[in-house]
């Protein structure tokens, strides 16, 4: 379908390439810092420092130090930081990274003096599709207001309505709307094309990237900034994930706590972060001489249709994940034997990792034991809606450089998973096609993307 101004006719079947990556993670911000950290097996997991975690079952997380929104927006926009939840700051930081990496000249870079001249793209054909989570209210801010409307620990609606709520800044609600990640990013960089906010837990980034891929393919945009971001390194999210029995209790060994596919895994680790990528129509990228990391050739999505009650369990055979992978391979026009690398989502949960492994085995069939599987959660943890984008960026770089970073906490491997996980390395592998998977830990959404080593 055509969108935006409608001035350009639909160009069916356009090729889409990745021309920029912007990871914001506990092990590094920006493509090169992130990639080196992966190759050097660095861990960003530690005892939580942002607040005292001693009363929580899991007391560890992946935190990012010293992130300041002023480094990523024009001076005139700095005051908007006051109405940005941390999730939004992560997205705005990732946007600056990815735009810079892709050598796009947007309003933000021009205003900051980091690029000269006019934008090098048509802003009405510049779309955004940014996955977001359920943004946690700023607890201290809200607690202060609620406390002020209470007597002897009891909350009074009457006092909240007359006084308590007035302690909140008038724009309070805007800090927490999930679409504000995309809204701030589109404002700062002036992206006026199709714009969406997908909120499907850990599947959000893949669904957003997949939808942006479709948006460009059908000719509704030439360039899309897409991915996701979220922070789960806060008291509310740490508590929620704990209630769902999703977290590792290896508090005395944070760097070893997140153990995807390992036999002794005991849950995931919360973190904060995200990533955005630039998807671009091939001819648009070539015309401006952009560096091409890889080509995006397939997208598929599916649902477990299995367990609706929360906190929902994954389908034991990974049904939704298998549907998504098969659809993505079909979309890419390739058969399972052509897959050279699977970039897995697994984040160290007992049932989920096994479910994903079953899906991968089911799709790859006889070759499952031979196809390398990569995983980058060990040092990063799971931030929710931004996790998939970080995985995807790692897969893009692996395809681009022909190197797979090691999943350093994954041994001894769980025999029930039965995959060839690259646990030592890095290992050089020439990757023709790679599949990247993601799924919501609750809710049942699954998605897969297929990357291809770029050839003219």
């Amino acid at each position: 379908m055509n969108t935006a101004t409608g001035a350009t006719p639909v160009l069916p079947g356009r090729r889409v390439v990745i021309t920029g990556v912007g990871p914001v993670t506990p092990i590094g911000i920006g493509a090169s810092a992130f990639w080196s950290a992966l190759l050097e097996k660095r861990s960003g997991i530690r005892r939580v420092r942002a607040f005292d975690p001693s009363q929580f079952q899991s007391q560890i997380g992946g935190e990012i130090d010293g992130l300041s929104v002023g480094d990523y927006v024009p001076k005139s926009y700095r005051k908007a930081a006051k109405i940005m939840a941390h999730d939004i700051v992560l997205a705005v930081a990732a946007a600056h990274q990815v735009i810079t990496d892709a050598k796009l000249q947007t309003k933000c870079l021009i205003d900051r003096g980091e690029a000269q001249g006019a934008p090098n793209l048509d802003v009405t054909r510049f779309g955004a599709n940014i996955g977001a989570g359920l943004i946690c209210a700023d607890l201290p801010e809200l607690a202060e207001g609620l406390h002020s409307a209470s007597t002897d620990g009891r909350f009074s609606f009457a006092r909240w309505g007359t006084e308590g709520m007035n302690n909140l800044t008038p724009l309070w609600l805007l800090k927490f709307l999930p679409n504000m990640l995309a809204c701030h990013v589109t404002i700062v960089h002036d992206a006026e094309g199709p714009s969406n906010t997908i909120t499907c837990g850990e599947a959000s980034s893949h669904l957003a990237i997949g939808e942006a891929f479709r948006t460009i393919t059908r000719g509704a945009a030439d360039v899309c900034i897409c991915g996701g971001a979220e922070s789960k390194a806060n008291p509310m999210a740490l508590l929620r994930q704990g209630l769902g029995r999703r977290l590792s209790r290896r508090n005395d060994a944070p760097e070893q706590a997140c153990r995807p596919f390992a036999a002794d895994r005991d849950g995931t680790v919360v973190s904060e972060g995200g990533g955005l990528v630039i998807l671009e129509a091939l001819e648009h990228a070539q015309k401006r001489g952009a560096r091409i990391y890889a080509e995006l050739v397939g997208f598929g999505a599916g649902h477990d249709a299995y367990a609706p009650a929360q906190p929902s369990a994954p389908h034991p055979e990974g049904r939704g994940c298998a549907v998504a992978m098969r659809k993505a391979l079909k979309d890419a026009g390739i058969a399972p034997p052509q897959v050279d690398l699977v970039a897995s989502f697994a984040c160290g949960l007992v049932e989920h990792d096994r479910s994903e492994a079953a899906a991968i085995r089911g799709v790859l069939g006889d070759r499952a034991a031979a196809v390398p599987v990569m995983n980058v959660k060990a040092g990063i943890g799971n931030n929710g809606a931004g996790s998939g984008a970080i995985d995807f960026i790692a897969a893009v770089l692996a395809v681009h450089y022909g190197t797979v970073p090691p999943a350093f906490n994954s041994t001894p491997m769980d025999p029930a998973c039965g995959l060839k996980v690259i646990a030592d390395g890095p290992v050089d592998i020439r990757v023709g096609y790679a599949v990247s998977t993601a799924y919501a830990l609750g809710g049942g959404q699954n998605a897969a993307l297929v990357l291809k080593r770029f050839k003219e």
Partner: protein
Amino acid sequence: MMNRRVVITGMGWVTPLGHDLEGVWKRLLAGESGIAPTTIFDARTFPTQFAAEVKGFDLQRFLGPHYEPHKLCSRNAGFALAAAEMAWRDAGLNGAPTHNPEMVGVYLGGGEGPIDFDNFVAAAIAGWDPEKHELDSVRWAQVAAERLTAVKEFEQDPNCAAGHIACRFNAQGPNVNTLTACAASTQALGEAASLIRRGDADVMISGGAHSMIHPLGVTGFNRLTALSTRNDTCATASRPFDRTRDGFVLGEGAGILILEELESAKRRGARILAEIIGYGSTADAFRVTDMHEDGRGGAAAMRGALADARVQPQEIDYISAHGTGTEENDKIETLAIKTVFGDYARKVPISSVKSMFGHLIAGAGAVELITCVLAIRDGIVPPTTNYNEPDPNCDLDYVPNKSRKAAVRTCLSNSFGFGGQNDTLIVRAL
């Protein structure tokens, strides 16, 4: 690339005016109001003390034998499930499976579930250290771990409603939730249609659901001064395009439509209600607090949808406006319509059912698209009620107060989200 056509074969809604398709439609055409004093929580000291609540809702009555696995779902997921059940039956899909489950998907504009307010507040109050003026995360965690439960916490996740629906109808295809604020369900329907067009699915269960009628939702909108505060005359408080409008009225509910690939619908002999022919999506990229003063994003979304549908502005017989009843939206939407439609803007009937439903936020676009389909079916457009004093900035034909018979073949429906995400859909009689 495939060029498949997308039709609507079933519809269902849960609204402040009732839970049945035809009864609610009659009440809309009669200009009834779904707005009354708030009962969900004690709002008597809030600046806004009224809302358009869904009344007498019983999910079990809708789901019957399928109720059990969904019984703990959040309020908005319950609305979504009920509306989906209604739509699924309306489409005649409740018999033996007619489609490959991997080609049946869900795309919702579903809101977050309401917070577990009493327990959340108890923990927050216990955790606040007034001396140190900070949150004591140790004390907070003690109380929170005792009082909060996994079910109520995870049911707040905005992807839950779409998950419940997929499980109920064994929909193993694409499953997505968008939350672009007030534009969400229009966007969901547009993207769902795109998935069918592209061949990613044959059937999509799509629309939206939301309830922000809870203490923090109303607090948030009251602090933004976005809500009407006409507490004494609340039934007539939602006044889109009227000079005396003073903000929107919060509503709740769900609207779900069954979208289907045309040939698949024909093969199974489905009744076809209308075709989705155009979708446009844009961003204002202006300010998070205000719409662009020229209405550029809204105008671009409408133009995009018209281009996608390959129809001229003069072919649009009815516009279902976003029409929230805020000073800014109604003025700027009017301007955007004039920009796109030129002289024809004065001739096309435009109305906002938010005057009766209130604003369902993420669910608004879906219930409004349903009214467009019913307008096509019955040749009548619903009114904008509570319209008494013309505003010089809003000088178009808003179908004031009384529904109107009109030959309606093609309708355009707008939804503009807080923060500047804009979406437009066009539906046409097949």
